[in-house]
């Protein structure tokens, strides 16, 4: 148990209850999930099934009503400076340039200016944004903004990456490009654990080592399936690989009732 990078043990979460006029909402019902270090887990499910809630608990923003949520064997008490959380919206500060946005987490940690700059420049280059370091978010396209948000999440070199539908707002072409850049960043950084929330099964199977399917509210684990595809993955080829299609189809048959 203690060798799990992330562990949810019999976690239930209930929203509401303070206000007797509103109904209580059971967001998660007895969910257990153990993720070994270095694994890429995709959490799939219909909207409102508590996917984001799981991330919020792992980020230390909320605590479970019942059960325990732990990281590296110890209970999560609050936000930690070595967890990278990427929200569904890019949430870039409009008054910071791309580079300054990437530096935000490093600033909060109190790192030296020269080091921050170096790290941000390096990450922006890896995401093919070197020409846009001094541009403000309003001047960048959606795909670029999302790449800046990825760079910002990874700038602090977290060992746990939490991503909440990071590519949901992108068009199909841009999405594939950004997914490819993202997966190669992860593949070149071994040992990083990823919890990736998405409602897109294809994306989940393309990227992850393991796909966890949640039911509609209250969220329960419906299916926990490995994705035995080799790495490094070349996404635009893999999409047409019969093995990939077969895995996706198998999982799809299992969760059709939940997603529809």
């Amino acid at each position, binding site marked *: 148990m203690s060798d799990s990078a992330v562990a949810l043990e019999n976690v239930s979460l209930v929203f509401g209850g303070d206000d007797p006029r509103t109904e209580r909402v059971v967001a998660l019902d007895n969910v257990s999930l153990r993720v070994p270090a270095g694994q890429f887990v995709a959490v799939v499910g219909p909207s409102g099934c508590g996917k984001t809630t799981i991330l919020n608990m792992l980020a230390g923003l909320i605590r479970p009503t019942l059960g325990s949520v732990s990281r590296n064997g110890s209970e999560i008490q609050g936000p930690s400076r070595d967890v990278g959380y990427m*929200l569904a919206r890019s949430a870039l500060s409009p*008054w910071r340039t791309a580079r300054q946005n990437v530096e935000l987490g490093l600033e909060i940690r109190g790192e030296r200016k020269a080091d921050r700059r170096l790290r941000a420049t390096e990450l922006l280059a890896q995401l093919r944004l070197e020409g846009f370091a001094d541009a403000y978010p309003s001047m960048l396209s959606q795909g670029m903004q999302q790449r800046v948000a990825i760079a910002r999440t990874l700038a602090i070199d977290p060992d746990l990456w939490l991503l909440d539908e990071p590519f949901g707002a992108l068009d199909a072409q841009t999405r594939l490009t950004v997914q490819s850049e993202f997966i190669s960043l992860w593949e070149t950084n071994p040992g990083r654990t990823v919890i990736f929330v998405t409602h897109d099964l294809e994306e989940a199977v393309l990227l992850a080592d393991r796909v966890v399917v949640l039911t509609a509210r209250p969220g329960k684990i419906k299916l926990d399936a490995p994705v035995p595809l080799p790495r490094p993955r070349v996404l635009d080829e893999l999409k047409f690989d019969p093995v990939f299609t077969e895995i996706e189809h198998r999982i799809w048959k299992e969760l059709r009732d939940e997603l529809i």
Partner: protein
Amino acid sequence: MSSSDPAPPADTGQGATLDTVPESATLWRWRIRQLDLPVQLIRAAVVVGLYFLWSSRALFKGVPITVFGFEPLPEVKDIFYAVPSEVWDYFTAYYHDLLFWKDLWVTVQEAFWGFALGSTAGLLVGLTLGYFRRLQKIFGPFLVFSNAVPKIALAPILILWYGIDMGSKIALATVIVFFLVQMPTTAAVGLVDPDLNILATTMGATQVQRFRKVIIPGIMPAVFGALRLAAIYSMLAVVFGEFLASKRGLGQRLLYSVNQFNMGSAFALMIVLALIALALNGLIGLVERRVLKWQSNREGGQVVSL
């Protein structure tokens, strides 16, 4: 500005390639385009037109219309207004008048200190109440009540308290500016993108860091809007205070001129007062342009952009 720039015409000629597209415009061409000559010409025409309309005295002859027994454009007696040449005479006279410059300096100081004190206090209280919701809950209703008091009504009382020198005018301007800045600042804190707050929290930001990196920059657009308004209202408060009771100041001089039916002087002083307010506004604009650099690619709501 850039959105109104016309796109270069498409070259549909035979053998057109990217090489035939002309180089980007030179700097001086770009500057001229930025000036937007038609706009400047129409502005100049409006100024000239108003000048002649005013000089011709046509405006003051009155138009015989009655709206519910009220004449919106009455005839004004010759001694109750001035034409541009008279106003100009006073400008030149005042330019050489040391006492005029003393009055101007008094009014500028009053307006500046009223603005500075009021907006500093407004910002501090506005931020505190916006950030600590509990405090806002406790003190909010009291502030709403105080704000509902017509602040001009305080002027006679403030003159009793602070005397007829600069103090009472600064106090009145401070009170007016305070509410103009405090209310929007408190509201703006609550409107800062909640995602940015969540994000900073997940990154382990302390309260102070969140304040400095999210809240303060997030409220700046609203704060500058409020400051621009406050600068104008600071002038208004000071002039009104001088009307009531004062030893020196342009407001006092203006009232005196009107009482003497010295309309050339009164009109000249009004224009000077407007110029001071614009100068204050321009100073704020300079700071705003630096602080809100990230907004400069959008249409800025700038009052002074010549």
